[in-house]
């Protein structure tokens, strides 16, 4: 028997996006620039800094990454990922012109408006710069609205640093303070940045906590040792932001995977302040 179908959209159907540009950032790490195959969809699409999406390699499945480009840059989105599992390997096999799926944007955002008039300190480690790149460019594109911008970025080795061109660009800007570091032993003969672990470099750089916001992303061990440093510098937990990367499948609060206690990282996050993180059960 026939029953009329409603017009509830299929929330699991990704936009089809064409890869416009592929940049190899570091061994196994790529950035895709994606454009909508359907201009109408492009027209309607908006997102904000901090949001994430589900990217499909058709035939392999979906994977979750933050949108790495700034909402201030229109006409495309970018993502950066490390080839690790089945989906990212599938994505890594794609080239310019190939089509992948994009479902999003999902999740909350960095409160950029609330940060206006403040100093912003970005602390990132390794492959965690991409989720922050979105907000960095957003801030830099609206540079006048913010005071001092400090970017502290570390990776294991020089080769592992991502966005090398942009690091150079930020380094050259007078209105950005960039400190890059690599772990001891990860330097090359011509390395001009710091050598040392991120927490120590943060301590040395000693950004002022006065009227400041810190955004920290990186491996758990880096975060664990960076937080006390920031705290010592006077940063309050509610002024330190991060983005959590729990495993997700649906991205829209249904599949149950990203739950941290009663919190759904996909809906309540991914952006949290450390004041919020402290309240979460240790399941992230």
């Amino acid at each position: 028997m026939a029953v009329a179908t409603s017009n509830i959209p299929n929330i699991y159907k990704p936009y089809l996006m064409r890869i416009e540009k592929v940049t190899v950032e570091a061994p196994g790490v790529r950035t895709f620039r994606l454009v909508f195959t359907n201009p109408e969809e492009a027209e309607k699409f908006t997102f904000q800094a901090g949001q994430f999406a589900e990217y499909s390699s058709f035939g392999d499945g979906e994977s979750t990454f933050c949108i790495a480009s700034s909402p201030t840059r229109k006409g495309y989105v970018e993502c950066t990922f490390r080839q690790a599992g089945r989906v990212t390997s599938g994505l890594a096999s794609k080239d310019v012109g190939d089509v992948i799926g994009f479902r999003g944007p999902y999740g909350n955002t960095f409160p950029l408006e609330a940060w206006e008039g403040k100093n912003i300190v970005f602390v990132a480690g390794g492959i965690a710069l991409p989720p922050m790149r979105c907000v960095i460019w957003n801030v830099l594109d609206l540079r006048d609205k913010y005071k001092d911008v400090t970017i502290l970025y570390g990776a294991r080795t020089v080769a592992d640093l991502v966005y090398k061109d942009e690091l150079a660009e930020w380094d050259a800007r007078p209105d950005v303070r960039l400190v890059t570091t690599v772990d001891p032993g990860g330097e090359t003969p011509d390395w001009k940045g710091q050598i040392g672990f991120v927490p120590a470099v943060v301590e040395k750089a000693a950004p002022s906590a006065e009227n400041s916001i810190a955004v920290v992303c990186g491996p758990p061990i880096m975060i664990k040792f960076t937080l006390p440093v920031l705290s010592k510098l006077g940063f309050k937990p509610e002024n330190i932001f991060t983005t959590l990367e729990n495993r997700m499948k649906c991205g829209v609060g249904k599949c149950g995977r990203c739950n941290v206690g009663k919190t759904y990282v996909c809906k309540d996050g991914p952006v949290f302040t450390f004041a919020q993180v402290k309240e979460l059960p240790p399941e992230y």
Partner: protein
Amino acid sequence: MARIGVFVCHCGENIAGTVDCPKVVESMMHIPGVVHAVDYKYMCSDPGQRMVRDAIREHKLTGVVVAACSPRMHEPTFRRACAEAGLNPFLCEISNIREHCSWVHEKSEATTQKAIDLVRVMVEKVKRNRELQPISVPVTKTALVLGGGIAGIQAALDIANCGHKVVLVEREPSIGGHMAQLSETFPTLDCSQCIMTPRMVEVAQNENITLYTYSELESLDGFIGNFKAKIRMKARSVDMNLCTGCGSCYQKCPQKKIPSEFNTGLGTRTAIYTPFLQAVPNKPVIDRDNCLYFKKGVCKLCEKVCPTKAIKYDQQDEIVEVDVGAVVVATGYNVLNTGFFPEYGYGKYKDVITGLQFERLASASGPTSGEIRRPSDGKVPETVVFVACSGSRDPAKGLPYCSKVCCMYTAKHAMLYKHKMHEGKAYIFYMDIRAGGKMYEEFVRRAVEEDGVNYVRGRVSRIYEEDGQLVVKGADTLLGGMPLEIKADLVVLATAMVASPGAEELAQKLHVSYDAYKFISEAHPKLRPVETNTAGVFVAGACQAPKDIPETVAQASGAASKVLQLFSKPELMREPVVAVVNRTAPPLFSTCVGCFLCEKACPYQAIGREEIKARDGKVLKVVAKVNAGLCQGCGTCVALCRSKSIDLQGFTNEQIFAEIMAL
């Protein structure tokens, strides 16, 4: 970001005659990841290879599929071409659309479709190929030569003379093989022993050669460059160090009626014996089956007469283990037991003999000191009939192949007979005369024209005895099949050459393949005639196929040069087709759960155990570890591993899966 190039070879008309090559190319261009596809008349030619190299550079290819002949032909060619263009050679795969497609199917759409499928399968595989580095393994610069006939001797001397150690193993008490048994050799009629024995002595005197006679290969383990051979030295009952080879023992031995193997049963020997006077080493052995002491516990005469107390009745077989880097198999041949031609009466009539027996009759060192006397009564035969192709070229009753040397030695035999018995009559029944070779045709002609040998083209149907004479019944096919009956005093059968006894067992020990007749198979009939399919094992002489002395010697030198090539570098580069145990992120480190069921299954004992430790040294888990030097890449462990924690480089699960998915 796979960027695959596909190169479809026409192989002249060999492929293009049945497969629509342009269509194959066209269909490849629709496959994701294929950025370049092209067909060409001869891809393996220099311009063809250049196309591959240029495309790699121009299109920044990350993988190459050459659709052409079997990978056994040109995989190395194209992998080299890729390497020259800067592409890791293991990113090149061959799709076999000739042997597996164009040559076995008629020209049709289906054939082209099959070619397309085969190429697509390889494209999907190559997309998942990884850059691999050849594995370097050390090479033990000692060669093992199995067989002390002319082939083994030649190979051993060639290798030893280049300064490498050789272990030469001979089953019989003396080296020399069949060549030492021969009288004169065609086409020059120089004395076989005259040219052979100096070489035998050379072997004995060469410091680089360790000679194990009366010994056999027990087992061979390991792999190219790193074999471990176990050699069984059979108990000689004679202490080699003490024996001076004076000969007192066998002169006194009371057992004198034992048929001599060396003389093909036409002469006798004692129970303690050396096979022949020029034997190397010239030291006797006791044939325990025939020795009175061993049989009945009495005698010990030899012990009494031995001046150096070298007789050791209680000697045991001894196993010696040697490390060798290469093996040359030169175990020779045997002559066919003609028993399966009952109508020829071999074994029934004493005067029906084999060609090899005739050699002994004609040899100056033989039982008749070179006089041709028939075995039954020692009479000098007045009529001798030679029967060529006795067992060869006869798929119905004998062997389908041509034994290659019979035409020549039969001509030689007839000639030798005529030289010694000018008024005697020599008849040769033959099918065709195969006398390809330098001075061979001339030699046969000489037999006919100068020595008056009667060549009769036809088969012998029956040989029987009548009034003390042999009656040879046959037909002369040149005279329209006219029946022919010749009364002969002696009949010589040019019996087929067959693999030597135990050839099959030996091949299995060596892990080399062999054909239906137990002849060892060469790796390629044309291009790799001295290699076997087991790397590091080479073949020389008649154990591979019937051949004459010059050919045997040439092949032996060829095998030696392959060994020397292997020994020319300190290390050997090997294809990295080896199993690898995976590594994953902590806390798992590897998905291997350490059941070690693979360890037991590995035919090469290549799987060991590895402890994964925490920073504080605490053992977190024990996982399997593959010794890449020992692993030969069979993949048995991979199929066995339940959790898919071990994979085979070059044939990974992902690759094989992709191939199936591409069907």
